[in-house]
């Protein structure tokens, strides 16, 4: 029987109904501007600070270290440009070649402005080389920006070790934690990290809201000018309803969800590898986001397979050139050494806490059927 199975939670997630319920009054009765001194404004200010505390607590930060933004992309831009524009003495950034475009394209833009950027290589599972990182640091290095969990292949970098290297060399460390937030432990008291990017819509919160953690004492230059909102670092009237929804989404995340996703993900990967031949798992088996499976079905083109799954109610995303606006295969898959054909044959399946075993079985059944069908007409298969 046809089902609807959403397996693209790395792209975005359904907003939890509890989150929606919590947000609604902030559009109608509690609509105040947190900067207003009257009662309505102060009502908004109170909930803004409560929300800040909830988000801060989840990573053991101080509330004053959380700056609300419009989401992951803005947080990445604010972190990187904010640091390098503030430090006139230094002009070098180190990042990796599997970062999200929000980081990569920010760095590319800075290169045009005269900054130097080192793009670290990754191995076939997507891990950076810590030695290469340390060797790349110079006295001109202002910032290291390495993501925690990769959005495509799920690789979880050892940010604790990266943090130590940065501390030893007195370099600031930013990590894009948009995908790993609430899914991978993150404790800023224990780990030396100076800036972290978050997004609400990846954790069953609303779109258009996120945050940047800025460790106390770290100075960043605002990207635009305005009022004194968010300590002047991010001017603009706070998106109270969004922020309330973000905080609610954070408070609804439980460690049991991680276990649930991990179990189903392993069942999914094991079953695909067992039931279909010539399948490769992209990314590592162990140090991997709990909800991510990225699989390459050899001799099958990913966009075509994705379209067959879509017709059958299954939403996934593809690393194929055919699905991208630039007609280029995923830069992440190319960085881990896949050739064009393998990258074009890869699909990403991302689970959520709402994914069930029945969902997985339905996806498996469809994969067997449609991979078989497409292989039958593949010129690479004869």
């Amino acid at each position, binding site marked *: 029987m046809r089902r609807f199975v959403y397996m693209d939670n790395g792209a975005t997630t359904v907003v939890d109904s509890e989150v929606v319920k919590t947000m609604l009054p902030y559009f109608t009765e509690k609509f105040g501007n947190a900067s207003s001194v009257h009662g309505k404004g102060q009502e908004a200010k109170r909930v803004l600070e409560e929300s800040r505390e909830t988000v801060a607590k989840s990573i053991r930060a101080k509330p004053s270290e959380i700056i609300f933004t419009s989401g992951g992309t803005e947080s990445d831009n604010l972190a990187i440009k904010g640091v390098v524009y503030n430090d006139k003495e230094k002009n070098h950034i180190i990042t990796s070649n599997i970062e999200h475009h929000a980081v990569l394209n920010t760095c590319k833009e800075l290169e045009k402005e005269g900054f130097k950027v080192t793009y670290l290589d990754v191995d076939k599972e997507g891990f950076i080389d810590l030695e290469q990182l340390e060797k790349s640091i110079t006295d001109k290095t202002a910032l290291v920006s390495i993501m925690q969990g990769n959005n495509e292949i799920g690789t979880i970098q050892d940010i604790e070790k990266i943090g130590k290297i940065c501390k030893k060399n007195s370099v600031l460390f930013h990590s894009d934690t948009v995908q790993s937030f609430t899914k991978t432990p993150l404790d800023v008291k224990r780990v030396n990290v100076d800036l972290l990017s978050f997004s609400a819509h990846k954790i069953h919160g609303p779109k258009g809201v996120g945050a940047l953690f800025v460790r106390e004492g770290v100075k960043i230059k605002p990207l635009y000018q305005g009022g004194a909102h968010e300590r002047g670092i991010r001017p603009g009237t706070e998106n109270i309803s969004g922020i309330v929804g973000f905080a609610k989404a954070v408070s609804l995340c439980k460690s049991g969800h991680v276990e649930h996703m991990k179990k189903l993900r392993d069942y999914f990967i094991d079953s695909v590898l067992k039931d279909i031949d010539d399948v490769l798992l992209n990314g590592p088996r162990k140090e991997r986001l709990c909800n991510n499976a990225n699989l390459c079905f050899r001799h099958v083109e990913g966009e*075509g397979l994705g379209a067959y799954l879509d017709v059958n109610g299954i939403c996934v995303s593809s690393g194929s050139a055919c699905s991208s606006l630039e007609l280029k295969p995923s830069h992440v898959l190319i960085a881990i050494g896949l050739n064009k054909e393998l990258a074009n044959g890869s699909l990403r399946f991302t689970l959520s806490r709402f994914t069930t075993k029945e969902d997985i079985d339905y996806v498996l059944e469809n994969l067997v059927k449609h991979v078989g069908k497409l292989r039958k007409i593949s010129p690479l298969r004869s």
Partner: protein
Amino acid sequence: MYNKKVMKRFLKPKYAGKIKDPDAVGEVGNPNCGDLLKIYLKVDKKGVIKKIRFNTFGCGMAIAASDAMCELVEGKTIDEALKIKSKDILDLMGGKDVPVLKVHCSVLGESALKEAIKNYKNKKK
């Protein structure tokens, strides 16, 4: 993202498959996106393409476009087939309805056809 005509062909391509002892084969790759298309022809003594089949490593649009190309070709003579352009293939799939980004998929069909006919003519020499 695809219109009904494309979806219909993509889901049930009539010409997908191989021909065991073809009179000619044409294989082309799309340098833009990495797609591959291989076509098989069966040609009778009068030069009529009696049967055409395709294999593709390509997206939904590539499958649909290959199928549309085969439909245009089957039953035509070699000379008639050479007049088929990617625009004709596109027209069979809703023309202006086709996403701009996917137009290059129909070009692959035209190139594979030309390649197969070239191989056929070389063989005949």
